[in-house]
C-alpha cells in the first residue's frame, strides 16, 4: 500500500495546485487590463505629424503628390488603376482629339475615339475621379491641422495657401470634365454608418463651383509668395493661383457653359444649373480677360522672374527648350511627381518604338494630318496640300512640305527623313520596313514635343507643365476678343506668342476672323498640352467633322523609286453631344447622392 502514501502527498500537492489555479485565474480576471493587452506603440497619429515641423512639411508633400496634375501616362499595371487619373490609359489625352492618335489599340484614347466608354468604364480609360478626391482629402487634413504646427504664423499662412490652392486645382480638374461638382472643403469623416448621409455631399451648381474655385484662388493668392528659393522651385507661387483663377474664368465664360441653351436638352432645372450657367452674360468674358491680364501683370511687374522664354538663337530650339528644361522662366507651375520606375513606362507610352523604346509593344503616338494643317509655313503663309485620298504623291514633296512648316511643327513632330534628336541620325518611316516599329503609327510622324531629351529607357520623364505664361497671352486675347475689348491689346497678346518663334505679326480684322486666328494660334502653341481636349468642348466644336468626330488622316509612305506618300483615312471617330461633359461614375450614381449628367 505504498501507493496510498504517494497518493496522499499527490492529493495534497494537487489541492494546492488547484487552489493556486483558482487564485491565479481570479487575479487574471481582475487584472484583465494587462491580460488583454493594448498595443503600446510609437504610432504616428495626425497630432504627432503636425506637432513636428519636418512631418508637417512632409505631409504637405503628400498633398502635392496627390493633388497635382501630372498628365503624362506613366504607370500601367493591369491590376492597379491607382494612377489612372494621371493621363489616359497608356496614351496622352491628345490622342483623343484631332491632334494625335495612339497606334496601340489598347490605349484608353482608343476607347474614347470609338465612343466605347460609359459611366462604368470612364474611370478606367481616362479619369479616375477618386484620385482627385483623395488629393482633396489630404489638402483638407493639412488645412484643418496646420494651425497646430510649430511654424510661425506667416509660414503657416503660406503653407495653408499652398494646400488651399491645390484643393482648388483638384476641384477645377473635376469641374472641367463634370460641370458643377460636390464641393468638399473639410475632411469627410465616416466612423459609423450613421455618418453616411453627411458625407454624401450633393453637386453644387456650376456657378457655385466656379465661385468656389475663384474665391479659393483669391484667398491663396493673398498669402502665396512670388517666388521660392532655388531648392524649393516647384512650390506654388502667387502666379499659379492667379493662373488657375484666370483659366477657371475663361472656361466659365466659354460657350459650353456661358449659354442659355445647354449642349443637350435638360429638363430638370436643378441639373440644368449644374451643367452650366443658365444664361449668356458677356461680362463673364470681361472678368476672364481681367484675370488673364492679372497673370501677365504679375509676371511682368511682381514676380521678378517670370516671362516668355526668349533664350536660344534658333526658334525651334527656343520653343523646344520650354518642354525639356524645367528651369525656363516661363513655367508658373509644373508637377514633379516622378517615381523611380517612371522612365520605362513613360518611354513605352510616349516615344517611338525602335528609336527610344526598345520593347516589342510600343504605343507610338502619331500626329494627324488634320493637325498638321494647323501649322503655317515659317513665313506665316499657308501651306498648299494635295488632298486627294489614296493617290500617291512623290515622297520628296512630303519632305519639302513638312520641312517648310513653322518652327513649332519642327520642334513637335518627328517625321520621316529627320533626326529624333540632333546627331542621332536620320530615320525613315516607310511602311515596307516590316518589323521596323517605325511604321506602326497613324499620322504624318511621331510626337516629339516634351520628348527630345529622352534618349533611352533610363531618361527621366519630363515635368508636366500645369501653367506656363504663354497660355495667358492666348487666354487674354481670346477673352478680350469675345468681350469686344481693345483691339491693340488683342494684337499685342497674340503677337507676343508669334514673335517668340519668329512668325510675322497679325493685325486685327474683325471679331469672327480674330476668333479663328486666336484659336489657331492657341492650338499650335499649346498643342498636345491637354488644352485641345477641353478647348473643343468649351468652344462646343468637338462634334464638328474632323475635330473629335469623323475622319482622321495620315500620310502613308511607300518605298520604291520613286518613293511616294498617300493621304489615307485611318479612323472614323465617334462623338455624341452628351460627351461634352463626362458622366459621373456609375458607382457614385448608384449611391443616389449625385445627379448624373444628361444623356448618360
Amino acid at each position: 500500500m505504498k501507493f496510498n502514501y504517494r497518493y496522499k502527498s499527490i492529493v495534497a500537492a494537487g489541492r494546492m495546485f488547484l487552489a493556486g489555479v483558482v487564485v491565479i485565474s481570479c487575479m487574471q480576471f481582475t487584472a484583465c487590463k494587462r491580460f488583454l493587452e493594448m498595443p503600446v506603440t510609437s504610432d504616428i497619429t495626425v497630432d504627432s505629424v503636425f506637432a513636428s515641423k519636418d512631418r508637417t512639411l512632409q505631409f504637405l508633400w503628400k498633398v502635392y503628390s496627390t493633388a497635382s496634375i501630372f498628365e503624362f501616362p506613366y504607370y500601367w499595371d493591369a491590376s492597379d488603376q491607382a494612377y489612372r487619373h494621371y493621363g489616359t490609359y497608356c496614351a496622352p489625352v491628345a490622342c483623343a482629339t484631332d491632334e494625335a492618335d495612339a497606334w496601340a489599340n489598347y490605349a484608353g484614347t482608343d476607347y474614347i475615339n470609338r465612343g466605347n466608354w460609359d459611366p462604368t468604364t470612364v474611370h478606367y480609360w481616362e479619369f479616375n475621379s477618386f484620385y482627385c478626391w483623395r488629393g482633396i482629402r489630404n489638402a483638407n487634413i493639412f488645412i484643418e491641422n496646420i494651425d497646430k504646427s510649430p511654424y510661425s504664423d506667416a509660414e503657416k499662412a503660406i503653407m495653408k495657401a499652398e494646400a488651399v490652392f491645390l484643393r482648388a486645382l483638384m476641384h477645377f480638374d473635376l469641374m472641367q470634365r463634370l460641370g458643377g461638382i460636390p464641393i468638399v472643403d473639410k475632411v469627410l469623416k465616416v466612423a459609423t454608418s450613421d455618418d453616411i448621409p453627411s458625407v454624401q455631399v450633393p453637386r453644387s451648381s456650376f456657378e457655385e463651383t466656379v465661385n468656389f474655385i475663384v474665391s479659393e484662388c483669391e484667398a491663396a493668392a493673398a498669402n502665396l509668395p512670388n517666388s521660392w528659393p532655388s531648392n524649393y522651385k516647384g512650390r506654388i507661387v502667387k502666379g499659379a493661383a492667379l493662373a488657375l483663377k484666370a483659366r477657371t474664368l475663361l472656361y466659365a465664360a466659354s460657350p459650353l457653359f456661358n449659354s442659355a441653351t445647354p449642349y443637350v436638352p435638360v429638363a430638370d432645372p436643378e441639373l440644368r444649373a449644374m451643367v452650366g450657367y443658365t444664361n449668356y452674360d458677356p461680362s463673364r468674358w470681361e472678368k476672364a480677360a481681367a484675370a488673364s491680364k492679372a497673370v501677365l501683370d504679375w509676371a511682368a511687374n511682381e514676380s521678378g522672374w517670370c516671362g516668355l522664354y526668349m533664350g536660344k538663337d534658333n526658334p525651334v530650339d527656343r520653343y523646344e527648350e520650354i518642354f525639356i528644361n524645367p528651369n525656363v522662366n516661363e513655367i508658373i507651375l509644373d508637377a514633379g511627381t516622378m517615381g523611380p520606375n517612371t522612365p520605362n513606362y513613360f518611354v513605352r507610352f510616349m516615344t517611338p518604338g525602335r528609336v527610344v523604346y526598345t520593347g516589342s509593344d510600343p504605343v507610338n503616338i502619331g500626329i494627324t494630318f488634320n493637325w498638321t494643317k494647323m501649322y503655317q509655313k515659317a513665313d506665316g503663309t499657308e501651306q498648299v496640300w494635295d488632298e486627294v485620298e489614296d493617290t500617291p504623291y512623290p515622297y520628296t514633296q512630303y519632305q519639302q512640305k513638312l520641312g517648310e512648316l513653322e518652327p513649332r511643327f519642327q520642334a513637335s513632330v518627328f517625321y520621316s527623313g529627320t533626326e529624333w534628336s540632333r546627331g542621332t541620325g536620320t530615320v525613315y518611316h516607310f511602311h515596307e520596313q516590316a518589323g521596323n516599329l517605325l511604321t506602326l503609327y497613324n499620322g504624318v510622324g511621331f510626337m516629339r514635343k516634351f520628348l527630345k531629351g529622352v534618349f533611352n529607357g533610363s531618361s527621366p520623364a519630363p515635368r508636366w507643365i500645369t501653367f506656363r505664361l504663354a497660355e495667358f497671352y492666348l487666354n487674354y486675347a481670346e477673352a478680350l476678343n469675345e468681350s469686344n475689348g481693345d483691339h491693340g491689346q488683342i494684337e499685342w497678346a497674340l503677337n507676343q506668342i508669334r514673335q517668340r518663334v519668329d512668325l510675322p505679326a497679325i493685325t486685327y480684322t474683325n471679331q469672327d476672323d480674330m476668333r479663328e486666328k486666336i484659336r489657331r494660334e492657341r492650338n499650335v502653341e499649346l498643342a498636345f498640352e491637354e488644352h485641345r481636349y477641353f478647348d473643343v468642348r468649351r468652344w462646343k466644336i468637338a462634334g464638328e467633322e474632323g475635330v473629335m468626330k469623323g475622319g482622321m488622316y495620315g500620310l502613308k509612305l511607300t518605298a520604291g523609286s520613286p518613293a511616294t506618300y498617300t493621304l489615307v483615312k485611318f479612323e472614323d471617330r465617334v462623338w455624341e453631344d452628351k460627351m461634352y461633359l463626362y458622366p459621373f461614375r456609375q458607382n457614385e450614381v448608384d449611391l443616389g447622392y449625385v445627379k448624373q449628367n444628361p444623356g448618360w
Partner: protein
Amino acid sequence: MLMRQTTPVLVWMVGILLFIASPGFSQNITVKGRITDGAVPLSGVNILVKGTTNGTTTDVEGRFSISAPSNGVLVVSHAGYTTKEIPINGRTEITDRLELAADDLEDVIVVGYGVQRKLTSTGAIASVKGEELVKAPVAGLSNALIGQVAGLQAVQNTGEFGSDQATIYVRGMATLNGSGRNPLIIVDGVVRETFNNIDPNEVESINVLKDASATAVYGVRGANGVIIITTRQGKAGKPVMNLSSNVAFLQPVILPDLLPAYEYALLRNEAERNMGKTPTFSEEDLRLYQTGEDPIFHSNINWVDELIKDFSTQQSYNFNVSGGTEKLRYFTSLGYFNQSGGYHKPETSLGFPYRHSYNRFNIRMNFDFNFSKDFTMSVRLGEQITDNSFPNGGAWGAFDKANNLSPISGPAYVDGKYIESIRGMPAGVPFFNPFGMAGPTSTNGAFVTDQFSNTINTNISLKYRLDRITPGLSIRAMGAYDSYYRKQAIRNKYHDAYTILKDPNDPGNVIIYKSKEAGPFYGMSNAISDNNKWRKMYAEAGIEYDRTFGDHKVTGLILANAEKGYFPNLEYKLPAAYLGLVSRVTYAYKSKYLTELNMGYNGSENFREGARFGFFPSFSLGYIVSEEKFFPKISAITFLKLRGSYGKVGNDKLAARRYLYIDGPFTVGNGGYQATVMGTAGLDMLRYNMYNEGRLGFADVQWEIAEKFNIGAEMRFLNDRLTLSGDYFQEVRNNILWNLSTIPELVGMPGTDMPPANIGKVQNRGYEIELGYNDRIDNFTYWVKGAWSFARNRINFMDEPNRAYEWMRRTGRPLNQYYGLTFEGFYNTWDEINDSKRPISQWEGAGLQPGDMKYKDLNGDGFINSQDMGPIGYSNWPEITYSASFGFSYKGFDMTVLTQGTGHVSVYFASSAAYPFTADWGPAHRWNLERWTPERYAAGEPISFPRLELSPGAQHNYQVSDFWVQNGSYFRIKNVEMGYRFSNSLLANLGLKSCRVYVSGNNLYTWTRMKYRLDPDARESWGRVMPPMRVFNAGVNLQF
C-alpha cells in the same frame, strides 16, 4: 529537431512503464460465464470484480472466465447496454443478459465544459462515436465526418495527400464574412486550431453543438457551432491491446476525360475554320495522329495519365493499449498513416532518394488518476507528426499543366532523356515539357518540397469533490499547452536536357542532341519562418454543483477561463488573448420537465476597452411527454421528448485587421510612383519623403451577434426499434462587420482603408430529420438510418448601393449566390443571327455565328450585358445534405453501407477545366464532341456545347451563365465495409481475444448531373485539384 522527434518516444516509454507498474490481483475461485443480450452473445463486454482492478472481456461467443472471490460482485458493462452488477454467491457458472439501452439513463453526451445525461439534455446536439469514424478508410477526421452528422456539412475539396481535409460548417453559413464561418473546435475541453490530424482510433466521440443552448457557454466564439472531440480513456481492467492494420489502394477516379490526338486535331481544325482561319493540320498530319506511327512529331499523349498515377497506396496501423485500476486508468495509442505515390516520377535520376508520400504519426497518452474518492486528475497528451514529401506545386501544379497541354505537344522523355525542345512540329505546335527541369510540376528547377510538422496538445485537469461542504459540490481546474512547429524545405536538381529536330538534309532522320549540360548544382532551400511556429496556453477553473433532492435535480457551473495564443504573425506582435466566464444552471423535475440556462461572458483584446466583453445568454426547455401518466403505455410509441431553446451567441472571427478600434498609424514613404520632387534641376533638386494618412479605425467595433432559436423532438416507436428526431432552427446574425459600400468616393479614402461597421444581417433557417430502425431476427441484426438536413440563408442587409435592376441585387439572396446570364439555347441559323430584333451582345466581337449561345435579355433593352446577369442556380455551398446507411450482422459477418449526397448547390468551372483550346493550345474534353456544328445540327444530333473557338475566355459564349454554372448536387456511395469476426476456438490457440478481418471502400461511386467530368466537391474553378480519391481497403483488427 532531434529533441522534437524523440520527445514522443520518451512519452510513449513512460506510458509503457506506467502500464507495467499497474498493480496485480489476488486469486480466488474461477468463475466462467456467458453474457448475451437475450438471444445473441455479446463480445467485448467488460467484466470487472467490484472493488478491484481485476477484469476481463467476453469473447466472440460472449464467454468469459475470471478469478474472483466467491462472495464478490461482478460489474458487467458494455457500450449501449445498461451496466449490471451480478453477485457471485459462490457460483462458478454464470449466464446473464444485458438490457439494450439505446438511450440509457447513464448515457452521457459531452457538452461545453462538461457532460450531460443525453436523456435530459435540452440542446440540439448530435453525436458520433469513434467506432463509426474508424470505418472510413480516409486520412483525416474531418473526412470521416462526411455524412455522419445531421446538420454538419463537410465538403472535401481535394484528394491531395496531406491537405485533403474537408471544409466543415455547422448548419450552413450565416455570415457575410467568408473566413468567419468555421465552427469552433474543442479537443478534450480546449479550443484547438485543428483536429483533422488526430487518429480516429483515439477518438471516443465527436459531439456537434448546434443551437444556442449548447454553444452559449462559448459566448463570443460560439455562433458558428462547436465541434467537441473527446479522446478515449481507459477502463479499469486487464490491459486490452488492440492492433489494427489497413492497406488500401487509392484511385483518383473522376479525372478529366481528354480527347486523344486525332480527335483533338480534328476539333482544332474545326475551331480554326469557325474563326475564319486556315486549319493547322493537313490530311497527312491527321493520318499520322490516327495511326500513331510518328510518336515524336505527331504524338498522342494523355497528360493526366502522364502526370497522375492510376493507383496510389495507403496504409494505416494503430496499436493501442488500455486498462488500469480504480486508481489509475490509461489509454495509450500509437498510430501510423501513409499515402504514397500520387504522381509519376520523372524518368531521369534526381540524384537523391525521393518518393511522393505523406506520413503521419500519432501518439496519444491519456491517464486518469483517482487519488482519492474525491480527487481525480486527467492527463491528455496527444501528438501529431506529419511528414509530407511531394513534387513542387503539388496537385495544383500537376493539373494546371495537364489541363493546359495538348496531346500533340510531343513527349517529355525520349529514351529516358529529358526533352527541352522539339523543333519541326507541324504548323508550330508549341512544345512544353511539364516535368520542368526535374519534376512533374516544377518551375525553375525546384523539385521536391518536404514539409514536416509537429503538433503537441497537452492538458491536465483536476477535480475535487467537496461533498464535505455540501453534497454535490466540486471544484475543477485545467491547464493546457499546445505547441506547433512546421518546417519546409525545397530540394532542387538540374540535369541534362535534350533537343529533338528533324535532320535538315534528311527529314526522315531524327536528331536528338544534348542542348543543355546539367550543372553540378544540387540545391536545398529552407523556408523556415516565424509563422511556422506557435504556442498556445489555456487555463480554467470553476465550481460545479450537481445534486438531486427527491424529484428535483439541480446542476450548476461557474467557470473562469483564459487563453493566450502566441502566433508570430499577428499585427503588433502581441499575443491573442481571451478571458471568459461560463455559467450553467439546469433544473429537472422528475426527469420530465427540464430547464437549462447557459451563459457566456467573454472578451478579447480585439475590442475597445469598455466594450471588450459580451454577454451571451441562452435558455432552453425540455419536456419528456412519455413520462406523463396520461401518455399511453403502448409499444407503438414508447418515447417522446420535446425541447426548445433560444439564445444569443457571438462570433469574433471578423476578418478585419486587429485592434480595429484604433486608427492605423501615419506612415512615411517616398511616394513610389507618385513622388514629390522640388528644386532646381541640375542644382539642388530633391525627392522628398512624405507622410501618408493611415487606415481609419472603427471605435465601436463589436462581434457578430447570432440570435438562435431551435425546437426539436425525439421519438421512439415500436418498442424502441424505430427512432425519429427532428429539429427546426432559425438564426438571425446581426452586427456582421462589413464594409460600408455606400460611402461616396468624395471621402477620398480607398475602401480598404475605410472602417467597416457592424451592419450586415443574414438569416439562416432550416431543419434536420433523423430516422433510424433496428431490429433482430434470430441471429440477424440489422439497422437502417437516414438523415436529412436543410439550411437556407439569406442576406438581409449588406449596405448595398442601388442596382439598376432588382435581379442584380445581392440583398435578399443567399450568400455566395451565383450571378450570370440565362442560357436559352443556341442560334442555329444565319436567319436568327441576322434578325434585327435579336439582342446585341456586349461580347460579340466580330459578330455572332450560328452555334453561339442565346441569352435572355432580362431588361428587354435589346442588349446583352452585365445588367442581364441575375441570380442563377444556387450558391456554392449545399443547402441540402443527406445520408442513408444500413448495416447488418449475422453470426460473425457484418456489413455497413453509407451513402450521402447534397442538393441545392451549384458549381462553376471555367477556363481549362471547362473549355477546349484554352490559351490556344489547351486540351479538349470528350464532352466537346457534342459541340454545335451545322452538320450536327442538321442531323439532329445531341448538342451540349457551343461552336468551337480557340482561346476561349472573353468571348460571348464564355460569359458566366447558367450554361457554365451547373447543378452540383450528387449522390454517392460513400463507404462500404464488410467484415468477419473469427470464432473463439480458432483464436484461443493464437492467444487472441478477437480477430476481425474486413474490406472497405470509400467514395465508391458518384452520381451527378454535371456535364463536366470533375468531382462536384472539387470546386477549384479551373480544375486544378486532385479529386477526392476512391479507396479500396483491406484490414484486420486483433485484440489480445
